[in-house]
């Protein structure tokens, strides 16, 4: 019996998958998108007010991965035995149509151009010896100029609100002075500053820094995007991260791309389809299709396809490559192989500042993508020479909206009591008069920080779990401490009466119990050398040329910026080259 054949299979219904599906159907291909989770639409479960039930949402993790079926194992160092990540805490991968693109906040950055060629930049400025032993510092193999049209395209799909600094070489506004030139302005005007962001803006400016409004994929106005999909305007309700926006204001695949795709007869989406593997031919150089499990019926189905796109979450892409035998698994001992190499995270610490009781920050107000940031300590924007570390952090006040249960469990911070009237006073004080300041930093790649298949633990489908070997390294800890030290004087200038400044400490291991960020990266990185990257500069597998792997898995380093904008641009970039070159003559786009 012949398998059903389609032109292209896309694994994962998040941003990467939705963008590739749209591009490939536009190119005339028949596309099947497989999503392991459930169908999700704004008009059903995203509808107000059920969508903003905090207990069902952020507490019981409605939109997140079901760890009882599949998860990862984690250890800090290679001499430890990894254990399964059984409760969602440090990072929150999405599940269901929309993926992490449905539950994200909406901070929609481009990239700091020098982050794309970080190794070259560091070497040019400080010499080869500046790079610490064991750090796998690498360039992406693409430049900002290569990607600019695709950042531009993505912003017009996402309905991104922001304030530009430079458009076509001309300074046009009060945007980020460190940001690169743009071919056109943001499609929507900048989001308004919350009060907390506005006082940070003033204090940062007075301190000589260069504050700017975060670019937000939260619509500041109603918007109809490139695909005719509509967004409503954000009202700062604060239910962004962890929720499906009932106002259609936060960009998501569900709001911004899938409505148009669902009308295309060449497109079909199969939810509850857990992809078990990419099927390869006997040479292991060509994918023949994929095999997936219907999680409702437990029935296995194989589909055949000419082109396979992995658009799942970062570590799921790496997992699929490893279980399918795509490329050579990374071995940290011999420092060979590429799949699993350069697994990275971000170095993020969140500090809290309390203001006098006459000053109201009203923490319940918020928009996930909005806020005010400075880039003075991000990327290569400052002199690392005397500091002796690589990387940096934007610093920002991103008042995303504190929900009631989160407020009650967070309470007063520092040494305040956990019960009684003092607890209640502190809780109220925090809710009304405090603000958060984040150092949202980069994370470098190291030879002994990587992903591989766990030798012991298996998922509910009998496949080995992916194993993370990860901990904080001295370079990143020192970077974080340096940047956090810059927050204190700014916070004082804002009128802080109390501060809870949080930074990493030397020797502090990665702790999975506390939420840090879902911005995982690397593991199947892009690059110019098949010995040190799993993907070429078009995100095509070096080893199996009809497999493209789209996502933050392609990042050689964890950057200071939020990754979604970069993922979207890389998705459009890869799609462009698939459409203009690959489809005309399938095969490697770069000769190894």
């Amino acid at each position, binding site marked *: 019996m012949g398998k059903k054949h389609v032109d292209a299979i896309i694994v994962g219904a998040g941003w990467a998958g939705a963008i590739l599906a749209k591009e490939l159907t536009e190119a005339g291909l028949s596309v099947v998108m497989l999503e392991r989770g459930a169908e999700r639409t704004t008009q059903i479960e995203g509808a107000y*007010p059920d969508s903003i039930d905090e207990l069902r949402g952020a507490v019981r993790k409605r939109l997140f991965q079901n760890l009882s079926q599949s998860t990862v194992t984690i250890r800090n160092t290679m001499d430890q035995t990894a254990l399964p990540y059984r409760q969602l805490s440090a990072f929150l991968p999405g599940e*269901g149509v929309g993926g992490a693109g449905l539950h994200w906040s909406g901070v929609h950055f481009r990239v700091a151009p020098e982050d794309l060629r970080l190794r070259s930049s560091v070497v040019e400025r400080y010499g080869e010896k500046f790079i610490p032993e064991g750090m796998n510092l690498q360039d992406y193999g693409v430049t900002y100029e290569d990607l600019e049209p695709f950042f531009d395209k993505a912003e017009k799909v996402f309905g991104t609100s922001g304030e530009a600094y430079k458009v076509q070489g001309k300074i046009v506004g009060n945007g980020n002075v460190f940001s690169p030139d743009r071919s056109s302005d943001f499609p929507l005007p900048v989001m308004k500053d919350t009060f907390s962001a506005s006082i940070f803006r003033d204090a940062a400016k007075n301190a000589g820094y260069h504050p700017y409004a975060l670019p937000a994929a939260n619509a500041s106005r109603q918007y109809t995007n490139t695909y005719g999909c509509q967004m409503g305007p954000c009202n700062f309700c604060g239910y962004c991260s962890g929720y499906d926006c009932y106002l259609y204001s936060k960009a998501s695949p569900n709001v911004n791309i899938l409505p148009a795709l669902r009308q295309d007869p060449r497109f079909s989406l199969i939810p509850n389809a857990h992809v078990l593997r990419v099927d390869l031919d006997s040479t292991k150089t060509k994918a023949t299709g994929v095999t997936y499990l219907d999680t409702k019926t437990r029935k296995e189905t194989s589909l055949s396809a000419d082109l396979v796109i992995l658009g799942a979450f970062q570590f799921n892409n790496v997992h699929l490559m490893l279980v399918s035998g795509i490329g050579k698994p990374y071995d940290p001992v011999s420092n060979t192989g590429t799949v699993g190499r350069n697994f990275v995270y971000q170095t993020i610490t969140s500090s809290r500042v309390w203001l006098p009781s006459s000053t109201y920050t009203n923490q319940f107000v918020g928009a996930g993508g909005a806020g005010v940031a400075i880039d003075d300590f991000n990327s290569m924007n400052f002199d690392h020479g005397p500091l002796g570390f690589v990387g940096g952090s934007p610093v920002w006040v991103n008042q995303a909206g504190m929900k009631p249960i989160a407020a009650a469990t967070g309470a007063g911070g520092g040494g305040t009591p956990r019960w009684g009237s003092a607890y209640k006073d502190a809780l109220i004080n925090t809710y009304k008069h405090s603000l958060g300041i984040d150092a949202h930093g980069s994370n470098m790649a190291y030879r002994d920080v990587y992903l591989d298949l766990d030798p012991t633990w298996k998922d509910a489908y009998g496949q080995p779990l992916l194993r993370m070997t990860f901990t904080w390294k001295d370079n990143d800890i020192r970077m974080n401490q340096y940047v956090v030290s810059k927050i204190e004087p700014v916070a004082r200038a804002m009128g802080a009466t109390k501060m809870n400044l949080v930074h990493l400490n030397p020797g502090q291991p990665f702790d999975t119990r506390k939420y840090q960020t879902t911005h995982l990266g690397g593991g199947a990185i892009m690059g110019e050398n098949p010995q040190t990257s799993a993907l070429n500069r078009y995100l095509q597998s070096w080893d199996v040329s009809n497999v493209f792997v789209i996502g933050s898995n392609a990042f050689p380093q964890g950057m200071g910026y939020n990754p979604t904008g970069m993922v979207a641009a890389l998705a459009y970039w890869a799609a462009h080259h698939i459409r203009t070159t690959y489809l005309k003559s399938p095969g490697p786009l770069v000769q190894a």
Partner: protein
Amino acid sequence: MKWPLLAVCILGSSLAGNAVAQDADNATLEKGRYLAAASDCAACHSAHGKPEYSGGISFSLPMGKIYSTNITPDADHGIGHYTEAQFGRALREGVRRDGSTLYPAMPFPSYARLTDSDIHALFVYFRKGVKPAPISPPKNGIVWPLSIRWPLTFWRLAFAPTPTKAIPKTSGEFTDPELARGAYLVEGPAHCGACHSPRAITMQEKALTATDGSLYLAGGAMVDGWTPPSLRQENRTGLGRWSEDDIVSFLKTGRAATGSVFGSMTSAVLHGTQKLTDDDLHAIAHYLKSLKAADQTQKPWTYDSTITDQLHKADLSYRGARIYVDRCAACHRTDGKGYPSVFPPLAGNPVMMQDDPVSLIHITQSGATLPPMTAAPSSIVMPAFKHKLTDEQIADVVTFIRHAWGNNASPVSTEDVKRLSKSMPPPDMADDALSLN
């Protein structure tokens, strides 16, 4: 140019004879497909989840339940045995193949206006362009003696015009070809009056065309829990403040700066008007804009910011204001202006000011889903509030909306809401039932 495809085929007649005939057949079939959309046949004859045009949608009439018929070319269950003449007679005169009379749920008094060439195209489409479906709708639930059809013949003879009378009446009244086309579509295939014109006690539409007087399209009685508003030029309750472009956008995408489609009209846009050409939609809008107000006494609506100013000062003293701010303002805004084409305005929206508040109460109770349209793929939802608000709260908030921003319509009582809970349409969710995990 109404039929560009046909014109191209005729111009291309230097091709081989067979190919021309084939193209002409295809053009006729496509014209029939288009007219079927314009006539909104699917709204009544295509049930969700069943083969296209296989019938089975129920209609609750005072005398019992009837079901729409299978109009696919299936010989046993559909209309496969109908000749073109019989088909035309059923459409335009309400006479079945066996000579008995159709229930006037079938809008044959409007279809009487269809031209012979349009009947031919529809016949070709329903013969060759629709898949035969061998299924029958459920049996009508009308009990004897009301199930006897011959009294319908008297109704038909008394109230339904013959094509010979109807066709010249619609097409002959307008010298402007755009108005004539608009009149033909609205009064004929689109049968707008079936819902939007008032009916007499004997159920016939009080006016079937613009020339029958100002009751035509002046607003109808409740259908499926929704009260069709006037499509004439009343300033407050009609289309007086809708531009031609607003009407076109509404019919093409279900959404316009002035309002969004909901209730029974959703299906008419989804299956019907969105498929019409821009030229035809403009003709319809142009024609509707030509219909003078039936009620000439309405004081023009102007925006009144009193309530907005109060809300901006956190003054929630007006009845229903707090519920409005908590439940409605996120999308419709405290100034009632909404976010045009995404979330419709309530300020100055004719539906808010209708004498009969039933549509407003029902949409608050049941919610509404604006489905994806070809030219506007986003589905926008208004949630149902029946299980979130008490009858009293719904009465309060509806009263608030009817009062605010210059709407100045009459208040609504808790009793009204309670009574209307019975006719409340089922909560309106998107077409496909999706799992809520």
